[in-house]
C-alpha cells in the first residue's frame, strides 16, 4: 500500500513506537519460522555426546558431517542398512518424469480447453478441476488394486503414473487460467496465417508460457517430491520414495537413537525442494497466489 507515514503529519512519537512494535512482531515470527531450521541444522552437525549434554540452541563446537554421511550411506531403514541414498534416487526417478509429463499434458489440455473451445469444454474443465478437491483416501484402495493388475505395484513407474494422474487437475488448472488470458485474436491471426493446432501451440503458445511453466514445474516438483501418502500406500522396502524412507529411519526403534542422523536425513530429504525454493521462490509465490486465489 501507499506509504502513509512518509506523508505530512505522519511522523509523531506514537508513530515511532508503532514502528518499533512492528519490527518486534516481525522478528519474533521470523524466529518462529527460522529457529526450527537452525536447530535441525545444528543438531545434524553435532555428535551424540554433544546433543545429550548441550541444549537445543547450543551451537556445535565443531562442524562435523559424520551424521550426514551416515544418513546418506549407512543408516538402517527397516531391515536394510543402505542409508537414504537409494531412496533419494527413487524419488528423483519418480519426480522428474512425473513432473514433465503432467506439465506437458496440462499445457496441451489447458490450451485445447481455452483456445479451441468445443461444446462441453467448460464441463470437461469443471470435471477435471474436481480432482483438485478430493481427499486422496477415496482413490487409494482401487489404485493399489489397479497397480497390481498393471504389474507396476511397488515400482517407480507405478508412482509416476499415480503422480501424473493426480497432478493433472492442478496442471490443467494452472495452464487453463494462464491461457485464458492470452488473447484469442492471436490464435485467429495464426489460423489465418495458416498455422495448425500444434504449430500454434509450438510457435505461439509455448514461447509465451515460461512464467506458467516455471510455476507449474515448481508446484508439481514440491508436491510430488514431498508426497508421503502415495509412497507409503503403494510401495514397500526398496521401492520407497525418500519421504517414506525418512519416516522409517526416524521411527526405527532398534539400537541407539541417533538424533543427529535423523536431522541430517531430514535435511537431505528437504534439500531439493529447499534449493528449488531458494532459487525460484519468487515464481513459487507467484504460482501459489495465481493458482489458488484465481482457481
Amino acid at each position, binding site marked *: 500500500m501507499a506509504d502513509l507515514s512518509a506523508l505530512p503529519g505522519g511522523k509523531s512519537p506514537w508513530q515511532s513506537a508503532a514502528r518499533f512494535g512492528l519490527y518486534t512482531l516481525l522478528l519474533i515470527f521470523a524466529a518462529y519460522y527460522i529457529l526450527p531450521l537452525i536447530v535441525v541444522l545444528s543438531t545434524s552437525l553435532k555428535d551424540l555426546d554433544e546433543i545429550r549434554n548441550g*541444549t537445543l540452541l547450543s551451537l556445535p563446537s565443531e562442524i562435523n558431517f559424520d551424521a550426514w554421511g551416515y544418513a546418506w550411506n549407512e543408516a538402517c531403514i527397516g531391515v536394510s542398512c543402505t542409508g537414504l541414498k537409494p531412496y533419494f534416487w527413487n524419488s528423483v526417478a519418480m519426480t522428474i518424469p512425473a513432473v514433465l509429463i503432467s506439465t506437458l499434458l496440462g499445457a496441451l489440455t489447458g490450451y*485445447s480447453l481455452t483456445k479451441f473451445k468445443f461444446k462441453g469444454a467448460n464441463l470437461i474443465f469443471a470435471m477435471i478441476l474436481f480432482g483438485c478437491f478430493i481427499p486422496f483416501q477415496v482413490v487409494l484402495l482401487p489404485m493399489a488394486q489397479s497397480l497390481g493388475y498393471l504389474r507396476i505395484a511397488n515400482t517407480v513407474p507405478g508412482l509416476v503414473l499415480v503422480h501424473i494422474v*493426480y497432478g493433472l487437475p492442478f496442471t490443467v488448472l494452472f495452464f487453463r487460467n494462464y491461457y485464458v488470458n492470452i488473447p484469442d485474436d492471436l490464435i485467429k491471426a495464426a489460423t489465418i496465417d495458416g498455422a495448425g493446432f500444434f504449430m500454434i501451440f509450438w510457435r505461439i503458445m509455448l514461447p509465451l508460457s515460461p512464467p506458467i511453466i516455471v510455476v507449474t514445474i515448481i508446484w508439481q516438483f514440491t508436491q510430488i517430491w514431498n508426497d508421503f501418502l502415495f509412497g507409503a500406500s503403494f510401495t514397500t522396502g526398496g521401492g520407497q520414495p525418500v519421504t517414506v524412507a525418512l519416516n522409517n529411519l526416524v521411527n526405527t526403534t532398534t539400537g541407539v537413537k541417533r538424533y543427529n542422523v535423523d536431522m541430517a536425513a531430514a535435511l537431505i530429504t528437504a534439500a531439493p525442494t529447499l534449493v528449488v525454493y531458494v532459487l525460484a521462490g519468487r515464481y513459487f509465490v507467484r504460482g501459489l497466489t495465481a493458482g489458488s486465489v484465481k482457481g
Partner: protein
Amino acid sequence: MMSLMTQKTIPAKQPLSDWFRRNVAKLVVAPTFGLIIFFVYGFIAWTGYVSFTKSKMLPTYSFEGFYQYIRLWKMTPWNVAMENLLVFGSLFILIAIVLGCLLAIALDQKVRAEGVLRTVYLYPMAISFIITGTAWKWILNPGLGIQSLMQSWGWESFAFDWLINSEMAVYTLVIAAVWQSSGFVMALFLAALRGVDSEIIKAAYLDGASLSRIYLVIILPTLRPVFLSCFFILTHMAVKSFDLVVALTGGGPGYSTIMPANFMYEMTFRRNQIGLGAASAMMMLATVMAIVIPYLYSELREKKNG
C-alpha cells in the same frame, strides 16, 4: 461454368485431414479426460461401492447397505479421529489465517528487508510434512527439546510435555501445521493487499481515517475472497492431514491424535478391513465436499453476476 470454377480454386477435400483438423482439440483433451474419468470418478465409484459391502482383505461385491457406516460411527477411534479433526482443524485454520493476515499487513508497511522476511516466513511451505513432523518432534521432545532448554536456562519447574500427553498432543499438531502453512496464507494476503487500489487508501487518508481504521473498515472487507480461499484451502489440508500425524505423534499417545486419514490408512492397509476403510474414505470425501461445493457454487455465481 460456375461449377467448373468451383472445382478449380477450392482445394480438394481431404475427409480424413479435415476430420482431424476439426477434432484435434478433443483428441488432445481425451487422454487427460480419460485418465481423470477412470482414476478419479471411476475410483470414487468403486470405493463408494466397496463401502457398502462387507469386504475385508479382498473386495467382495454383495451389497450390505450401511453396515460399514454404522460400524464406523460406533468405533471409538473413528469418533476420536473426527473429534481431533474438529479441534485440530478449527484451531489450525483460525490461527493460520489470523497469523498469516497479521504478518501480511505488517510486511505491507514498507518494512526493511521485506524480501528476506518473506522468504523466511514462506520456506516451510516448500518442505514435506514428514520433515516438519520430524523437526518438531525433536524440538518438542521433553527429554532434549524446549523443556530441557528452559530448564537449563534456570527455569527448573518449566514443563512442556504436550507431545507425550494424550490430552495435549493434538495441539502440537496445530503448532507444527501452523508453522508450515501460515507463511502460505501470508503470501496470499500479501498478494491481495498489493492489489488493493491505492487511490482508495489515499482517499480514506484525506478523509482523516487512521491507519488501523483504514485497514479494518476499508481494506480487510475487500479481502473477503482471500479469507474464503484460505479457509477453503486450509480446511482441505486439515481433512487430508496424514503425514504430519505419522511423523510427529504417530497417532499417539495411544490413538489420541489420529486423524480420519490415518484411521483410513490403518484399516485399509494394516488391518485388512477395506470395507470399513472405504466407508471412512467416503466420509472424508463427504466432509470435503460439504465445504467445497458451497464454495465453488458461490464462486461461480459471483463470476456469473460480475
